[in-house]
């Protein structure tokens, strides 16, 4: 929000000479330019054709029929300069082009013969619109002087080349001073208030001739580039111009020495204050869709380039990284790209410089960012590409420019100095140069990972101790019960004990020890009946056995078989020679078959 800081004093006489002097090369040049490439149907375009250089005297361009326009000569100006002892001249011809219909037209190349050779200008494209564009203030019918009297021959207008712009998008403000009356003193110009904009003057002033409603005006135009600072409606305040013009209002027609004459002579004419209408510009916010991550608010059209001043350097030898952002836009406010992490380098502060050009009444140029880098490791060091994002208002889109990657070959310390021990002792301490990822691994491949929990067969590892304890505890409890009631324990164990014992008998028979087998067989039956009855095995007799079986309600065949077996085994126990193996085996089988039936007796 910077006001134009200086007042302009416009002198028509000086303005007539205000054609910029050009240092001319020997080679003649022939150029054509227009003050605007887009014009409304009720506006005019000023075509300025310039010949400069040696041999241009006497040359006059031929203006062909310009489709879409009616051309009216608006005068010529000549400039002669002396530079380094050489004389060169420049002649400019101005033409007012009045558009006839809306559309896109091309001013064709103009030709002129200079030094016997034809010279041509480049074609110029001009667009004629049906309605006035931008925040153009209407031409005042009349503007007032200080006394309230209407002034028809002098007025001030202000307009912008667009009525809607994005934040940061350049808007060209044109303040035009229209004059048909001669001025008696230098006017005092008050620039408009441009709060809400950043601004940049666009010299030089332009002078042209314009025909409005059939009247011919001399137009002096001041251009300023405005950059809206925030979204909303921004207003360019009125510009003012204080001047003095001739006043013949008191004249009597027959009085040659009328009051008007004396008024102009003694009082310096009539004071006039001209004021332009304010101009509104609708400022749009920059779109959020598509905004790059690194966007910092730069608006315009730019190109990015980066370079190092060396391709190789010694260790710790400084190199300069130059980053240039070039294009159109608010160059002064450019932020430039951020430096990415530069592993292997120590970066110092960045200094910037500005190259501004306002040719063609556009703010363009470049901003150069220089950073000193010091390589801290040797080898081939790569600088990653720089990225710069900006908003292109013409395309209404964000763009990202990327510079090319750079590389620097860094040579290490002098090897000979290291060998002879003359290399300086290093005073470096441990330094982390970059935060980067670690290298890849050579680890094994395997199929999809196991389920969360990370420990296979978890229950299998943890059940055995519990199971083991449970078993031991049960065993101990059983032992305890057995110790507390041995008879009951014997009773419960009788069947299992007898079955185990029969296994022993079988083993003895297999070994051929029939005598021992018979003895064990007899003992088995005796112990079984003893365990079941609670009687001592030594005192158990056949009668006891019979009574026992009868008490338990044994079936006759079970009882009979049991007692038969008892008798034969008792006899064999005391008879010399005992039983033969076959007989013992037969008894063994009998007892084996009998045991389940006997067990059943005690389960009733």
């Amino acid at each position: 929000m910077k006001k134009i800081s200086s007042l302009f004093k416009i002198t028509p006489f000086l303005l007539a000479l205000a054609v910029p002097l050009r240092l001319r090369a020997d080679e003649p040049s022939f150029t054509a330019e227009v003050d605007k490439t887009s014009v409304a149907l009720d506006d005019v375009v000023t075509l300025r054709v310039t010949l400069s250089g040696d041999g241009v005297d006497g040359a006059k361009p031929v203006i062909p029929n310009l489709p879409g326009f009616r051309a009216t000569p608006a005068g010529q100006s000549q400039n002669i300069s002396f530079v380094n002892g050489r004389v060169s001249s420049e002649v400019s011809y101005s033409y007012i082009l009045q558009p006839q219909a809306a559309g896109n037209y091309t001013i064709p190349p103009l030709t002129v013969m200079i030094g016997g050779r034809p010279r041509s200008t480049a074609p110029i494209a001009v667009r004629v619109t049906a309605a006035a564009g931008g925040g153009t203030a209407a031409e005042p019918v009349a503007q007032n002087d200080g006394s309230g009297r209407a002034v028809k021959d002098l007025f001030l207008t202000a307009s912008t080349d667009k009525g809607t712009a994005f934040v940061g998008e350049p808007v060209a403000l044109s303040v035009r001073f229209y004059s048909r009356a001669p001025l008696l003193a230098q006017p005092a110009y008050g620039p408009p208030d441009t709060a809400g904009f950043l601004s940049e003057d666009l010299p030089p002033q332009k002078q042209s001739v314009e025909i409005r409603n059939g009247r011919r005006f001399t137009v002096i135009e001041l251009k300023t580039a405005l950059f809206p600072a925030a979204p909303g409606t921004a207003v360019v305040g009125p510009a003012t111009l204080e001047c003095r013009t001739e006043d013949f209002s008191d004249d009597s027609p027959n009085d040659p020495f009328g009051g008007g004459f004396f008024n102009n002579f003694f009082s310096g004419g009539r004071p006039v204050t001209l004021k332009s209408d304010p101009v509104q510009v609708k400022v749009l916010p920059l779109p959020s869709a598509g905004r790059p991550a690194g966007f910092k608010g730069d608006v315009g059209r730019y190109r990015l380039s980066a370079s190092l001043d060396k391709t190789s350097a010694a260790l710790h030898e400084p190199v300069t990284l130059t980053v240039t952002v070039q294009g159109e836009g608010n160059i002064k406010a450019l932020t430039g790209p951020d430096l990415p992490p530069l592993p292997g380098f120590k970066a110092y502060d960045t200094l910037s410089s500005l190259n501004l050009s306002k040719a063609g009444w556009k703010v363009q140029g470049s901003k150069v960012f220089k950073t000193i880098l010091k390589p801290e490791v040797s080898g081939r060091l790569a600088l990653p590409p720089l990225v710069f994002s900006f908003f292109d208002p013409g395309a209404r889109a964000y763009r990202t420019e990327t510079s090319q990657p750079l590389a620097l070959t860094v040579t290490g310390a002098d090897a000979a100095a290291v060998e002879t021990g003359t290399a300086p002792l290093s005073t470096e301490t441990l330094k982390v140069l970059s935060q980067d990822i670690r290298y890849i691994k050579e680890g094994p491949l395997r199929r999809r990972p196991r389920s969360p929990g990370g420990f296979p067969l978890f229950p299998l590892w943890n059940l055995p101790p519990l199971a083991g304890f449970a078993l031991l505890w049960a065993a101990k409890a059983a032992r305890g019960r057995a110790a507390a009631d041995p008879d009951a324990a014997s009773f419960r164990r009788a069947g299992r004990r007898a079955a185990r014992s029969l296994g022993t008998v079988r083993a003895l028979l297999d070994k051929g020890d029939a005598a021992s087998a018979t003895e064990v067989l007899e003992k088995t039956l005796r112990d079984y009946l003893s365990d079941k009855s609670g009687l001592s095995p030594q005192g158990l007799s056949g009668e006891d056995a019979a009574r026992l079986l009868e008490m338990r309600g044994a079936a006759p065949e079970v009882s009979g078989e049991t007692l038969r077996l008892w008798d034969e085994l008792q006899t064999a126990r005391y008879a010399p020679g005992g039983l033969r193996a076959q007989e013992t085996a037969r008894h063994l089988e009998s007892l084996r078959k009998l045991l389940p039936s006997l067990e059943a007796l005690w389960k009733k």
Partner: protein
Amino acid sequence: MEKIAAALLLLSLWAPLRGEEKSPADLFREANASYQKGDYAAAKESYEKLSSEGWAGSALNYNLGNACFRLGQFARARLWYERALEEAPRDEDLRHNRDVARARLGITDEEDPGVLAAWVGPLSIFFAALNFLFFGLLCWGLFHRHEGLWWGRAAAGVLLLGAGAALLAAKTEARRDWGVAMARIEARAGPGENQAAAFILPEGRRVELLGGEGDWVEIGVPAQGLKGWALKSTVEAVRRS
């Protein structure tokens, strides 16, 4: 005899005609070589081929994360690092690379989910050892009496309970489903574009996956106590079925 010779000849020709198929280990080595040469795109392609064929392992996921990182795909790199961390949660290189990827994504306020989840394995071993010790002491105590034995059993019991609780917490934590945002997410209050926007999640951020409905998945940011819904296409799960 002639028929056998003909069959053998045909077999010897068939293998070259069919083309040599690389083994997974060879493909992995080839991918590593591409990475070492700086051809990160080729390395990524090979790693992804192995992964799509059902191969995993923390090294494969880690290397794939590195390749994505070098190609500037930081969110995807982060996703693969998280997948590798599922298998090797205490790998220091993995954690470092995951943190670097997070820093590149500009994520500075994310808390790591439950450190306990990384200790399920060691806790399981510790629990099993305590289990053996505790029940071993109990069994010993069935047949011997000693005051010190009682204290030993008591201590082992307390430790076993503690380890059991920690293991349960770790397993509960490890079973949580996580995802990574693959794009900037505008989380909604419900599953649908017409639902009110609840919060914005930047690309690369880790979220908890809480459920799904149609094309939408419910996501949570436990550290900030946020829950919302996002399109399934914008979130990728860390744990793949």
